[in-house]
């Protein structure tokens, strides 16, 4: 580690912090201008009607409606910096605790979708690109374009219809069986409940990586160095293995890490369809219910995950690509 690297590291960290600040402020601002009345949406019109002014004032105080937005944001940010994420207004529990639980539910589902879409998409892309213009290519491209134009929630609905309603092989929703005590929930239960949401997420996620990989692979197959490999008597699959994979792995990796944000965005909708109590659903609840501390907590967690994915891609790229790695080594 030399000085320059340390400086670069700090600059990166500062950038991430600034971005998190910006993103959370944006979320806060959107909530502030949203027309949703926290009391109406959380307490209900009828209940409010039967309350005394004093009670209503108390509620207004609880939902922070008497404090100016700027002050509330400042209070939240100040607490957050000191490690206190506040208390969720909806769940009446510390935000950190709620986040931990929801993240645990979502994370493995998103991770499964991420890995599956990455691996399958990559394999399909290689297959299509190596057979550019042939039926394999048309099949993969056709599938990808179809999926890319299908919203994740729609696909989720279709899956739900087929597997849960018609075939009745998988549960309709939730993360655990309905009516089972928390202690009795097995890992198998959790897995079975995660299959459809994960499938819906990965099926749409595949198309992006497959299309990109196909493009890169076709490019490589038309490159001078593959022509030369052919001139030296290398067979098609040897070339794909020796030159193809080597040259498309890096761009595919970058794309895959960048796709974390898409998986995340897709999960919000998919969790909604499957009533899956994860981070995405909590985000929707917090937004509609004006649960400012929870929403901001979720915002920060998602920002960290997304930025983390991109930063990791950059980092790995620098380590793996010899052109960048050696350039840096020489720069010392």
């Amino acid at each position, binding site marked *: 580690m030399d000085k320059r690297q340390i400086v670069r590291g700090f600059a990166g960290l500062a950038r991430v912090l600034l971005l998190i600040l910006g993103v959370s402020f944006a979320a806060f601002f959107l909530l502030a201008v949203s027309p949703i009345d926290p009391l109406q949406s959380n307490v209900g019109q009828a209940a409010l009607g039967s309350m005394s002014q004093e009670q209503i004032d108390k509620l207004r105080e609880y939902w922070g409606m008497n404090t100016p937005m700027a002050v509330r944001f400042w209070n939240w940010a100040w607490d957050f910096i000191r490690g206190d994420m506040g208390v969720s207004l909806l769940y009446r529990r510390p935000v950190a605790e709620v986040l931990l639980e929801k993240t645990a539910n979502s994370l493995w589902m998103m991770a499964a979708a991420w890995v599956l879409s990455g691996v399958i998409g990559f394999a399909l892309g290689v297959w299509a690109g190596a057979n550019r*213009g042939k039926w394999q290519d048309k099949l993969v491209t056709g599938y990808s374009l179809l999926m890319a134009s299908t919203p994740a929630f729609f696909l989720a609905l279709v899956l739900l219809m087929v597997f849960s309603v018609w075939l009745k092989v998988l549960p309709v929703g939730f993360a655990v069986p309905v009516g089972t005590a928390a202690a009795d929930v097995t890992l198998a239960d959790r897995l079975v409940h995660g299959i459809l949401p994960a499938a819906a997420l990965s099926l749409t996620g595949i198309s992006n990586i497959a299309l990109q990989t196909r493009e890169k692979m076709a490019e490589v197959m*038309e*490159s*001078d*160095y593959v*022509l*030369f*490999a*052919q*001139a*030296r*008597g*290398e067979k098609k699959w*040897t070339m794909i293995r*020796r*030159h193809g994979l*080597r*040259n498309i792995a*890096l761009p595919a990796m970058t794309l895959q890490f960048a796709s974390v944000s898409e998986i995340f965005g897709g999960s919000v909708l998919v969790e909604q369809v499957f009533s899956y109590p994860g981070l995405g659903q909590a985000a929707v609840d917090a937004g509609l219910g004006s649960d400012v501390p929870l929403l901001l907590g979720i915002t920060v967690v998602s920002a960290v995950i997304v930025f983390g994915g991109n930063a990791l891609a950059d980092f790995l790229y620098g380590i793996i*690509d*010899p*052109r960048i790695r*050696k350039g840096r080594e020489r720069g010392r």
Partner: protein
Amino acid sequence: MEKQILLQVEGLSISFAQYTKGLRRRNLQVIRDLGLTVRSGEITAVVGSSGSGKSLLAHGILGLLPYNASMSGEILYKGQELTGRLLENVRGREIVLVPQSVSYLDPLMKVGNQVRKGRKTAGALERCRELLARYGLPPDTESRYPFELSGGMIRRVLISTALMEEPELVIADEPTPGLDLTAAKRVMGHFREIADEGTGVLLITHDLELALEVADRIAVFYAGTTLEEMEASAFQREETLLHPYSQALYRAMPQHGFQPLAGTQPYAGDSYEGCVFAPRCPYRGEECSIQEIPYREVRGRKVRCIRPELAEMSGSPGKMDRSPDAENLALTERGRMA
């Protein structure tokens, strides 16, 4: 004694199917009726300017044309048609390519691995080291990536790849651009060595002077076809050259007055009637732009000219200020005298 003929190309044509505006299909003919011969232990240099289809010729011989290209004509390797099975068996083993530039190396693979074609046997490792040493490359070249090497080093790496096998025919595509004169001469010397070991070399280049230093035979390449094939020694005197373009090349050499020929080569795919060189030819007659000009045997060599006698008789007086017209006039006068 004549050496054994290794590669014989006759009537080779390569064209591309292209779709123009309105989805009309047209054929872009880049190589037309090309012929040449390579003998074992000899260098045949194909000399022509860039963009005229020389790389395409190299790739065509190896059967590596893009999907939208079609090829016709005859390519004989040791007397057998070089297609299908035979081609698959000899490509990369008996017939090797030394490609044109660094882009033919995998940018993400270490040089040693590429030279060895991935083989890790003791024999391959040893041979690779030997070759790198033979071409004056430091031993750590093996573990470097292409982008870390200079142009001259890349050339030598590319030559090394050819000699990993025991080739009978080496096809070298433009091995000298980007090198200074000393380095270029050294690279040419490497090909001379390879030929002297009994291998046939097809040396594709745009540099006539460098080619003349090492080649046994020259094939004059113009707008996708060969105009004349001769012993390299024929270039010692203008009178021994039969085709007017060969003579023009001779006169364009620095030591012979550096007189460039007016006009430019037709682009690849330009259509023409009769002789492709006629528009620039000082000796052209009416018949030149009417009939197809055959590539025929004249005095023991192939020439694509229907009136080589005229060109031969011109016997360059070496005037510096001859315009093509003046040349033509002088010629007719001399013709009358005869």
